[in-house]
């Protein structure tokens, strides 16, 4: 939690971050050009270094993403038709399969690195505020914010229940008793979540909530943001030119 609060300070206007992440992700995701993917990845790494946020945290999250990508590497080279470059046992790996897997790895890492370093560095409230300033419908913002806010609450509720199970000597086994107990836990969580949401709704009504989140602070574009906007725009232009083969 402490870390979370410290990170609430901002480096780049979150509105700029959101828009950039969106445009960048769309370009990278839609491109099947290897050069665009490579430049995209390099630019996302440069961005992370410039923002200088917790590199260890980024690596930890990247690891999770890359576990999925590893699975692609196990399947794609052997299932895509094309000229064969090597074979293991009876399995033949094709050139196009390898390059396809490589492209996906580069693209997904570029997008994830950019999203993590820009979006998770500003803290949730800056993000909520920025979304509201960008005229995103309020209902979507609440869903996003309340989902984030109450995931913690439900999780800690789950931890409490789990401890309750432990002190009564519960040990998960492959048995009907275990499955039934987990069923009960899930049911209890569902009910608690529902009840909690009702209470929060009441609390909001008591304070005059009429379906609209009113915000106290708004963002102003500062000199740092202008530099960031310039660099981000430049990067996007480079990526687009590469995509259309105009640069080299």
């Amino acid at each position, binding site marked *: *939690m*402490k870390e*979370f*609060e410290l990170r*609430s300070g901002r480096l780049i206007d979150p509105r700029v971050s959101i828009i950039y992440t969106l445009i960048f992700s769309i370009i990278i995701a839609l491109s099947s050009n290897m050069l665009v993917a490579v430049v995209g990845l390099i630019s996302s790494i440069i961005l992370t270094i410039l923002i200088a946020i917790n590199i260890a945290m980024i690596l930890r999250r990247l690891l999770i993403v890359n576990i999925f990508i590893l699975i692609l590497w196990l399947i794609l080279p052997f299932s895509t038709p094309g000229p064969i470059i090597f074979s293991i046992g009876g399995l033949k790996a094709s050139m196009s399969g390898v390059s396809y897997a490589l492209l996906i790895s580069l693209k997904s890492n570029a997008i994830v690195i950019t999203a993590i370093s820009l979006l998770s560095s500003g803290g*949730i*409230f800056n993000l*909520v505020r920025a979304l509201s300033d960008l005229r995103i419908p309020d209902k979507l913002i609440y869903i996003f*914010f*309340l989902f984030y*806010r109450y995931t*913690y*609450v439900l999780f800690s509720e789950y931890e409490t229940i789990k401890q309750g199970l432990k002190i009564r000597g519960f040990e998960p086994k492959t048995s009907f008793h275990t499955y039934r107990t987990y069923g009960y836990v899930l049911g209890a969580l569902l009910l608690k979540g529902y009840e*909690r949401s009702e*209470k*929060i709704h*009441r*609390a*909001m*009504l*008591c*304070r*005059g*909530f*009429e379906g609209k989140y*009113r*915000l*106290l602070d708004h963002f102003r574009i500062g000199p740092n943001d202008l530099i960031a906007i310039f660099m981000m725009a430049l990067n996007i232009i480079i990526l687009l030119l590469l995509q259309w083969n105009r640069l080299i």
Partner: protein
Amino acid sequence: MEQINLINLKGVCFGYPQRPDLLSDLDFTLNFQERVGIIGPNGCGKTTLLYIIMGLIKPRRGEVEIFGKTRREEGDFKEVRKKIGFLFQNSDDQLFCPSVKEEVAFGPLNFGVNKEMVQKIVADTLARVGLSGFEPRTPYSLSGGEKRRLALATIFAMNPEVLLLDEPTIGLDEETVIRIKEILKSPGLSYIIVSQNRLFLKELTDIQYTINNGKIKRIE
């Protein structure tokens, strides 16, 4: 402001489905600058009574008259909620904003107070409950006592004419209880406190009631 009769419940009946009536034919009055305590066993309907006053649940029968007007529809309760501050039993149910500052500002902003004024209200109310300097913190990272004081601040920020406090001291340490007592002792407040703590009620309220079998009775 100088209404004598702030809250007036007449013949209120309420029950949850498939259970005997929690409140049956209940009459209750809160006068201006009256400080009322309600005590009673768990599940006797104390919190339900507060919910009915706030319009969060509707009685099956009976009349709810607040600030001289009969309140029936959801819209009737808008004014009620503006003027009556309700402290929930569990502060986690009450705090939902991303920062302490926005938590306190939520009510005043909903009621259309302008932003400069809100900034001032936030600073003043946080000072009143001893949470100055907590503005950027996240409410869910606060301690139990701090949460309760923040919940109080969110209510005071709306400058209510009446307070409804549901178990305001439950689970709090002595020091926090003393703090809350001091806040409640400021002159001119009208409030209803629901509590299991007889001594606390004796100290802070003029009249005590108990709810039993759906009826409210004054404790002499």
